[in-house]
């Protein structure tokens, strides 16, 4: 039985081999010069899901911040700490890149 991941999942493009996931297929988020630079505050510390919900009304997009900021975030959750400067991808960018 195969599972179909949603389009807002980081595994949406990764194929299934039987009941196992194949090699991870990255989902790049394009970067734009006018993306907003945000310093993570106490409200969103370790809560990329909350930031994704507040920005995009979709908590499943918690992983896009780590993909958009590979130099700043290695661990999507525990690197999301106070003082970390990250770029915020726009809703339109995500819609185009992820097809959501």
């Amino acid at each position, binding site marked *: 039985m195969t599972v179909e991941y949603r389009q807002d999942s980081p595994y949406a493009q990764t194929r299934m081999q039987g009941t196992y996931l194949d090699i991870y297929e990255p989902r790049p988020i*394009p970067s734009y010069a006018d993306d907003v630079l945000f310093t993570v505050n106490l409200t969103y510390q370790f809560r990329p899901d909350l930031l994704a919900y507040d920005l995009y009304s979709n908590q499943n997009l918690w992983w896009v911040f780590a993909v958009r900021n590979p130099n700043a975030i290695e661990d999507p959750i525990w690197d999301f700490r106070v003082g970390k400067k990250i770029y915020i991808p*726009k809703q339109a960018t995500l819609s185009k890149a992820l097809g959501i």
Partner: protein
Amino acid sequence: MAFNFNNITEAVQDATSSAVQKGLSKAIPGDGFISKTARGYLGSQANRLINSQLNPGGENSVLPNGGVATARFGSDNDTRARLALSPGSGNILYRDPSNELLRPLTTTDGVVWPYTPSINVGYSAAYTGNQVIHNNYASQSYGQSMIEQISCVGTFTANTPEEAEYLLSVLHFLKSATKSFFGQDPNRGTPPPVLRFSAHGPYMFNSVPVVISATNFDFEQTVDYINAKVASGGGGVDSTTRVPSSISINVTLLPVISRQRQTEFGLEKYARGELIGQASGKGGMP
């Protein structure tokens, strides 16, 4: 009477929050449990964004002058050599959202030399010697001071497809920045863009306004070439382009200080280091 700016900030945030609550009351009227819960839920979501100075969808804030507030690469704390567009240049070259070829430069806000380049610059003061007859020494009359061209020579390498894309963008940006807007351009007649050059920290070259007077690339035959895949090439041809895995790039820059900026010059201020530039503000005086 001294103002407490913290109180003012809190007052503005309180006013914004109450405006959000008023808007929600209009959007979701009623005093029922569901209405109250929905208002509280959406209100806290909006308040969190407001307190974090974010806009829904990650959109930019619109400034009172109609411009768009953007936060760019944190070049203020970066001491690497960088050649970037001026902060007020508008959406041209790599800041053009439709420009796929130069997009890799957006992540670093311009060209960043990956290895420390060789920078050559000269400062001079010109004097005219008056040759007085029957005298042992000439009398020197001051003419003017000037900064000569900045020569920046550095090596770029490409060992991965991503680095190859970046190198291709660098080469194309430097070529493009030597040309003027012409022909079909909406702003045709405008000279080549003024750039900002930074290197080695604020008291060395800090966001110096420059124009490119010359650039040279050495495509050597003794190095490997690597494919750079561009998402959308022009001309409807295969967009795969080869770039050398190692290349020396020579850029000659001419400092350009506007007349307006020159009126702010003062030797004492310059000597105290008060005329250094800001990546997102006025250019520095070299």
